[in-house]
């Protein structure tokens, strides 16, 4: 009796979990699969497997849209913003974690209060300031915004890490005559490596995927990032589904690749980042 009941439970649970898995990756899988179909095939039966491997979609997509340029832009912007965020925020986090000075707590509170701000609220003023500073439609403009958007999360992550390092190590370094900057660079940062890596992964994914500021702060194809390029796919590839699906597949590939390669780190970064926030 009991085993019968639990068997039923296991089956129901499995069906439910598999259904949710289908919802999670079914659409993505379908797009990748359809990118190898001709538009005609997709129109006739959206659900069927491709008859043969057809790469026309990819050829057309690469013809119409300079996807590799967008890859490059996204990569440069995401990497630079991650680096900037890492340097600037880790220094501040170290100061807030270790130095006693007037206003330390108030400053920490100020930084953390930015977690309460829905970032889309800041669109217009940032756009106006960026216009004035001639940062509009530049890569640097996006790099600065992205580095700042991840600031509160990185700050808390790094600060917690620095605080977990025993003070004795630094004191020994100071006694040996090392300065604050050298101690920070050669002793603290290597010890906090995994914390810094966690923050960097989060920051990279955030910048790589960001859309709304890219939409507002850039306009030329010169600096366009990958997520923003998607905005134009629907109009560029009307009635050529094969090309659109090929474009989407190429756009989504790097994220999936990073996730598959660094799965454990990405997952734990996301948990850490959310719990700090």
């Amino acid at each position: 009796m009991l085993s019968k009941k639990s068997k039923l439970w296991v089956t129901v649970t499995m069906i439910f979990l598999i259904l949710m898995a289908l919802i999670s990756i079914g659409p993505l899988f379908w797009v990748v699969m359809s990118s190898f179909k001709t538009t005609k095939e997709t129109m006739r039966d959206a659900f069927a497997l491709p008859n043969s491997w057809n790469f026309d979609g990819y050829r057309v997509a690469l013809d119409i849209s300079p996807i590799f340029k967008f890859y490059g832009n996204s990569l440069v912007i995401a990497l630079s913003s991650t680096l900037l965020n890492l340097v600037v925020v880790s220094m501040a986090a170290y100061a807030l974690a270790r130095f006693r000075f007037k206003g330390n707590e108030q400053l920490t509170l100020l930084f953390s209060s930015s977690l309460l701000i829905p970032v889309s609220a800041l669109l217009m003023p940032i756009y106006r300031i960026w216009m004035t500073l001639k940062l509009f439609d530049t890569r640097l403009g996006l790099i600065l915004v992205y580095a700042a958007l991840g600031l509160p999360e990185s700050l808390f992550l790094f600060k917690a890490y620095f605080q977990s390092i025993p003070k004795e190590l630094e004191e020994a370094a100071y006694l040996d005559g090392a300065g604050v900057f050298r101690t920070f660079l050669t002793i603290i940062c290597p010890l906090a490596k995994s914390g810094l890596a966690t923050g960097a992964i989060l920051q990279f994914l955030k910048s790589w995927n960001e859309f709304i500021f890219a939409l507002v702060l850039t306009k030329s194809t010169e600096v366009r990032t990958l997520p923003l390029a998607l905005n134009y796919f629907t109009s560029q590839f009307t009635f050529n589904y094969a090309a659109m699906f090929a474009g989407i597949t190429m756009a989504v590939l790097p994220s999936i690749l990073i996730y598959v390669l660094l799965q454990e780190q990405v997952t734990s970064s996301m948990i850490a980042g959310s719990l700090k926030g």
Partner: protein
Amino acid sequence: MKISKWKIAAFLTPCILLFSLVFVIPMLIIIVTSFFDWKAGGIFNFVGLNNYINAFTADKRMHQAIINTLIWVALQATIHVSLGTLIAYLLSMKVKGWKVFRTIYMIPNVISSSVLAVILVNVFRAKGGLVNGIITKITGTTFTKNWFFDSDSAFITVTLTWLIYTGLIVIIALAGFMSVPEEIIDAARIDGASDAKLLFRIKLPLIRTVLGTCVILAATSKLTEFELIYLTTGGGPGDMTINLPLYLYKTSMIDNNYGYASMMSVVLVLFGVICVFLIHRIFRMNEADI
């Protein structure tokens, strides 16, 4: 060891500059200019509370945007989090392949939501879309509903697209379930607690703060939702699926009505603060007990 003031300043200044540029100055701008009639072409006049009064009395579009935003925040904070917690609970029982499921559920969270939006536009497309394709297969008759653009399905379709993001809640709640000490569970089992009792009386109360975090994440993500509306329905048909960020975008970037947009930003920030404050109270998040 005493560290000189200028060295402390050297560590802090870059971060303070960046923070001021992107958070502090923009915040000050929206607060001040929300009391101004500020439009393109040099119009800049103090109008007191007029923007606010106009928004809450006359502007039908604003009402729709606020109502939609709040409905979506509420749905997300309740149904979405419950679903994620349920899945996390099932996975925490270490069912067969739980790690594989966890990996799969996370995939939508690592790809750009603009990519996902464009994918979903195609999934729900009237002709050649996945959903209609499946329905046609099952029923045998050609089904051509335009999910995102028919007025009877647009709202619910936009709401449903967020189902795909449950994965983040799942992994956070799962980490919470995993952190419940084995001894407590063993002790409760010896006392004869059933699975249901164990879940509702022991596990859920113990991971309260984690769940609170999930609710905050879910709620605030809906306050800032943009891509999945802008790239799918664009707020339509009519204004059926408009929300605050989308209206804010249209007001500032298309109508160039900056003062009014600032007022909306202030409203959005207030919503954010109230949301987080309420959730903190409901989940008693500052009383740690694990």
